């Protein structure tokens, strides 16, 4: 289903277009009845810790976006997350992300993946930029869209 797109190329284009420090892409993989969500593609990452993580629905950034189906915008990690809760967001810690947004990727009206765009500097992911990313997602990301489509 998704083999027809070169995702590494797509996220590289994202990195260049928005000049972000990190782009990561998580997809669900069908494993019997369960959902297995893993960060399969990344560019700009410091280490490979994020690729080892198997995400749980409802937990962490990808988990929350995946479960709610809504995009997430955190302009400043330092002020919005207390330091002692931060370890619940391993990707933020290991990649030293200070400002980010995460979007659901829909296909056939189901969340198929999560796209994360992150900066290592505070307040760089502004609301305007966040809006722009959402607005352009169907252009930047062929065959996927960012919102649930109303039926009919």
């Amino acid at each position: 289903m998704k083999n027809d797109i070169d995702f590494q190329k797509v996220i590289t284009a994202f990195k260049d277009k928005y000049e972000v420090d990190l782009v990561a892409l998580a997809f669900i993989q069908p494993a019997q009845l369960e959902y297995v969500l893993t960060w399969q593609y990344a560019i700009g990452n410091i280490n490979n810790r994020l690729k080892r993580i198997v995400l749980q629905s409802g937990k962490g950034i990808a988990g929350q976006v995946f479960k709610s189906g809504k995009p997430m915008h955190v302009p400043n990690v330092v002020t919005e997350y207390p330091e002692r809760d931060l370890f619940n967001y391993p990707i933020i810690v290991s990649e030293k992300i200070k400002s980010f947004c995460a979007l659901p990727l829909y296909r056939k009206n189901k969340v198929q993946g999560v796209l994360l765009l992150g900066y290592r500097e505070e307040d760089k992911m502004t609301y305007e930029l966040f809006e722009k990313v959402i607005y352009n997602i169907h252009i930047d990301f062929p065959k996927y869209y960012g919102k649930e489509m109303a039926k009919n």
Partner: protein
Amino acid sequence: MTNNAHSELVDSLIGMYENSSEAFFFFNKDNKLLHLNPIAKEIVDTDAIDAMLEGQERSICQTCKGYTNTTELISCENCYFSDPKQDFSSFQVYLDTKDIGVLPYVASFHTIDSEKGTKVLILRNLTKLLETRELLFKNTTIKQIIKAQEDERKRISRELHDSVAQEILSSLVDLRLMKYLKSPEEVSQKVQHMEASLTRLLDEIRNMSVELRPSSLDDLGIEAALRSHFKWIEKNYGLVVHYKSEIKGKRFLNEIETVVYRICQESILNALKYADVDEVNVELYEKDDNLILKIVDDGIGFDTSQRVFKGTGLGLFGMKERAELVGGKLSIMSSMGKGTEVLLYIPLKER
């Protein structure tokens, strides 16, 4: 000063000397004891007093067991008495007292007549002060423990509410909807959807249960429980734990296994939160009737002498307490930029 005022002062001084709760010892330049007040006589053993009055060398060591310096609680290094180069205007000293044994005293030792070289040693009993301080420490720790307990309950409650209750509710709605579905295809699709949702729920409940206390710890033992915990850590946080166990599946007392498991869990979590590493080494082995757990990372480390807490400050304290519960010893070695090593010894003999 008028004669009158002077004699008043002398009277006051004598009164203080006779009735004070502080012990006074006056020494001449050769460290021979000149005078001591009644309370001092009560504290110190008569033989020791006689030896000091005679000016025998090191006679004070019969009662003084050492003082607290920056490296040791009880030390004789740079003795305040025989070699008073540093400032000894206030320090803690340990005295072997008459009948009661070794007690801590707050002391000051200084020269009051530089021409004759007369010196005075003043002692004040510290027992009461220390008791108060210990109680204060205990009370504040208990407060923190209660708070931590409440936080933990809050977390579990929230998790139950957010994941378990929510998934059940969604399944319930699906179930109610079934009545109104007409075609068998629709029903089959709904059933499939519910099955997936219930499987997810089962998974989440299992996860929570293991997080609270792994049943494998009771059923399969420490070796297996740690192995599955490390797998869980890697899956959830991406931290790789290199695990070397040489106990060959051996089982220990339940309380020992719990202590090892919890201390290991806490250490790994510390490494995860603060060390800025993505690999940790864990070794578990037996040596000379000791069970030894070693957790090493080469992260940013921390200054063990500085009490600056990044978290609640209860973690390390709890680890030490747990180790002591089974008569074990925990040591934490770390310095800035040199990584951290946690070493746990649990004696297995005499049980």
